């Protein structure tokens, strides 16, 4: 695997000024922080297998299955568009190398992808941190029935 080039972390006045221009943190004109919607439903998640590890693995497998399907769809879209516009033949795709910008964008996208895959682990950490989850689904059913 090629080693990534080390970036200079040295801060110069010019760099700091540029950083300030890029990030007007408390400027009154700054856009409000985007609204984040919840991704996890309240309620106790059942354990399906005798070993909870299997639950996590299946969780990941299905997510992976989804993302692979998404990727195939996207790739298919691109290849069909390119062929229709007579830009590229499939054979030309082989042997292509990304430039630095493309490589950096891929690193970021890959990071987001791994975050999504690792949700199964974070859910457990969130439960440990205590989100006021009921102890069991039976408890929820009983509470609602009463």
């Amino acid at each position, binding site marked *: 695997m090629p080693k990534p080039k080390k970036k200079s972390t040295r801060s110069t006045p010019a760099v700091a000024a540029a950083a300030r221009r890029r990030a007007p943190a408390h400027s009154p004109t700054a856009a409000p922080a*985007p*609204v*984040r*919607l*919840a*991704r*996890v*439903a*309240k*309620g*106790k*998640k*059942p354990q*399906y*297998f005798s070993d909870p590890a299997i*639950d996590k693995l*299946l*969780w990941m497998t*299905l*997510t992976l*299955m*989804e993302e692979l*399907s*998404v990727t195939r*769809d*996207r790739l298919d*879209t691109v290849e069909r568009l390119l062929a229709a516009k007579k830009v590229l033949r499939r054979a030309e795709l082989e042997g292509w190398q990304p430039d630095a910008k493309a490589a950096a964008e891929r690193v970021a996208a890959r990071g987001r992808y791994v975050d999504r895959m690792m949700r199964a682990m974070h859910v457990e950490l969130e439960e440990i941190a205590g989100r006021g989850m*009921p102890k069991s*689904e039976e408890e*929820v*059913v009983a*509470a*609602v*029935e*009463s």
Partner: protein
Amino acid sequence: MPAFKAHAMQPSTLLDEQARQDFVGALRGHLSGRLMPGAYKVYESRVEPAFRARQGRAPIDQDEIRKPMTQDSFYQFWSAMQRRSQELLWESVIDPTERELPELLQRSARLRAKKIGKSGKGRRRGTLRLNPALEIPRYHRAADIHLQPGGYHTDFTTDDVSAGVIYDKGINLYMGGALGPENNLMGDTLLAYLREKHPARQPKRILDIGCAIGNSTVVWARAFPQARVHGIDVGAPVLRYAHARAEALGVAIDFSQQNAEATDFADGSFDLIVSHIVLHETSKSALPRILGECRRLLAPGGLMLHLEIPRGRTVIEKFMHNWESYNNNETFARYMTGIDLQAEAMKGGFPAADVLVDQFIPKLDVAQMNYTEHFFWKILAAHR
């Protein structure tokens, strides 16, 4: 299958977002259509015979087979995947909603602010009355129904509509499009029931309880354009969305945030009260209170019609229906399995003779559902 109607209150989808929704559709289609019948097969071929061998008799209720079924490897995998598919479904709808929320909030505000045309000739507009002091019932707070994160009642921002945006597209995906282009199937079904069984009725004041995004309410308002139609729900974000959505569709409905157990409408306010698969999302104590409130709100001669899902006849059917209770936060569905709806209506004050618990398979062009002997609608009908 008719495409979901992309009205003004739905977000666009980027390429990958659309692909995720498409995948969820394919996955759920397989899990429900191809693998779920397998759960019945493993019950018949190994779980039930093993039970008989151990106990010397057949299982008598769904609770008896809960343990052996949840220990069956096929059922475990199906169940775990079904659960994950439901989570993926919401995720696939939440992503585009979150991304386009600023625009959706603007569109909602614009649609809801519109008044009757300047000349006074414009169509009547619907209204929205929210009550921030309303206590959200425990059956909404205890767990997020159907695993929709935040449920129907959580505001993630000011004047939020996200729960409604997500629910609308979510139920379309959940039913693989079978609810119709405007998620209209349940409204159409109950309307067909009214027209078949009570053809002379022309209601003037209609109330839809637990209306959520008003998908069924719109059906009633369109069917009876002379009627004043109200929709109530406990969730503010779904009601804001319902109002904006109805306006986008050009339908005037008066929405208000109220608990159907005790509303602020005057006695005898309505000649038709309807609900669409709402009762099984309530609670043991709330259900008779809701039916009692319906009775109070009905004018003399008025009719109430509640559409419900039958919850199975055999032990395994009941068990499979109640997958929803333990795995999909339909926490009250289990209790509904054994319920006597006529008795519940009587607790609400209806004399037995005025109550009918009916079954209905609509003869509708819009019924894209595959009605079978295992699937038909249950209807609780009662008149004042």
